[in-house]
């Protein structure tokens, strides 16, 4: 505690440091302040105030039905442990399909049957989401298939290019391909 009694005059900088060293942790407050806009924009996204997702893909016609599709985040697929890489999509059903549509699925590549239709959407028809597994070896020209199943047992399918559905995913795949 008697450091201040040093014979040599300390430099201005070390004086400042000595005086304020236990106050500079106030600067840690800048972290939540800096993240606050991100926090509120995320909250708006979760509530659906800023639309279905960060990037709207548009209306996709699936047989007699249609749905509005969006990328939840405008980001490449995110790693999720053993599940591999997952990409979040959201969707809203057309007004006329709310009653008759039993389930909506998303898959990369054409499903062989209804039993392998892919990731099931979860939520209400006004706004639902799914986490689509994206294998790292997916071809960049792959297609995203939408399968809709009716309560009466009917099934309708449509596809859009992955590059249209998620440019961020295609960019990520191209980068992965370059690595291999």
């Amino acid at each position, binding site marked *: 505690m008697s450091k201040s009694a040093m014979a040599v005059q300390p430099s201005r900088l070390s004086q400042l440091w000595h005086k304020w*060293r236990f106050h500079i942790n106030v600067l840690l407050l800048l972290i939540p302040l800096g993240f606050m806009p991100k926090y509120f924009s995320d909250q708006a996204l979760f509530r659906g105030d800023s639309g279905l997702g960060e990037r709207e893909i548009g209306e996709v016609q699936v047989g007699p039905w249609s749905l509005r599709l969006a990328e939840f985040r405008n980001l490449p697929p995110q790693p999720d442990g053993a599940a591999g890489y997952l990409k979040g999509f959201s969707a809203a059903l057309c007004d006329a399909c709310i*009653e008759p549509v039993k389930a909506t699925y998303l898959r990369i590549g054409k499903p062989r049957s209804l039993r392998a239709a892919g990731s099931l959407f979860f939520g209400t*028809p006004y706004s639902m989401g799914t986490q689509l597994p994206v294998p790292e070896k997916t071809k960049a020209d792959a297609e995203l298939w939408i399968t809709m199943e009716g*309560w009466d047992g009917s099934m309708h399918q449509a596809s859009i290019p992955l590059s249209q559905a998620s440019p961020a995913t295609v960019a990520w795949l191209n980068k992965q391909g370059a690595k291999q």
Partner: protein
Amino acid sequence: MSKKSRSKLWFLVHSWLALPIWFFVLIVCVTGTLAVVSQEIVWLANPQTRASAPSDDAPRLGYDQILTAIRQAEPQLLVDRISRPDEAHFALEVGVNHPDGRSSTIYVNPYTGKIQGTAPDFDFSAFTRALHGWWLVPFTNGYSWGWYLVSILGLPMLASLVTGLVVYKRFWKGFLRPTLRLRHGARIFWGDFHRLSGIWSIWFIAVISITGTWFLIQALLADNHISISSEPIIPAMTRESVPLSADGAPPPRVGLDRAIELAQQRIPGLEASSLFLPGNAYSHLSIRGRGWYPLMLQSATLNPYSGEVAALRLLSDRTSLEFVTESMRPLHTGDFGGLWIKLIWFFFGLLLSMMVLSGLLIWTKRTALATANALKREDKKTRARAQPVISREPSEVNP
């Protein structure tokens, strides 16, 4: 090492533990204290969140009646979740989806079914919890680094408690003879305050620091994909267990009250406080609530068409390790036994915040004193070089 220098070392460790980050610790304590009563603050600020009974003997409506009332008032809304907060003075919170895709929480009167209002976009409770819990740093891949930043504070806090008790010799005497000297200057007052509130908060500091450290362990486990859960993952319903309908309209579902009845047959004493409605044609209805042990929830997962119970999660299904780990969060937040427990947590949270502040004030005053003394000594030394310097740390005296 002599006994004296050892206790001096303990004292040194104690005084340095929170010092370099005292303001951060203080804000984490203050936001945590606020988070404990955030629901009550919202209750005070927003009359729409209150459950006012039309008369003293008015019965609460069943969940089916609540759904019907919402449908009548707002036919467009789709309900995905109903929860009845622990305390009876809160309105029901119902998660709804709007046709434009927005989701929100509406407050519904449990006696009349009237929609009293929509939760504001700014969720005060969620905000204070996010600020306290992870310093608002977003979760991108796994736990946010803000979570680590906050939860690691459990360790210095635990160390403060232990070292504090070691340096405060015979601290148990403080229970019998509480001392708070008001007229002997600020240094004495804050010292007394720090010790007095410290001994009465031993249990609380232990609870908060241990549970806080658990949050650190929880994040470390999750980020390394290590699971200690014994809970099986319930698969989506099979194609066969979901009925088809010839006319193309969704098949009828079991009523919520009937579903609760079925769940209670399997879990006696289950309080159905949260209902999660199926999120698609192949997903279950889930009913959750407390049983005899207030710190943990039990749940029943049902087929919404047949009412058949697909899975149960009972207190007895938990391993002894899970009994400990699952109790950590409610012990930290104090939200397991109604308003009084919350108020106790709030009071001790304030006390803990004041301890961080008083610790700093003591340190500042002591350092200022020690510096002044040192300067004085230096002055004397230059004048008369003969006098020996006695460096005396102001040590903790027993009251």
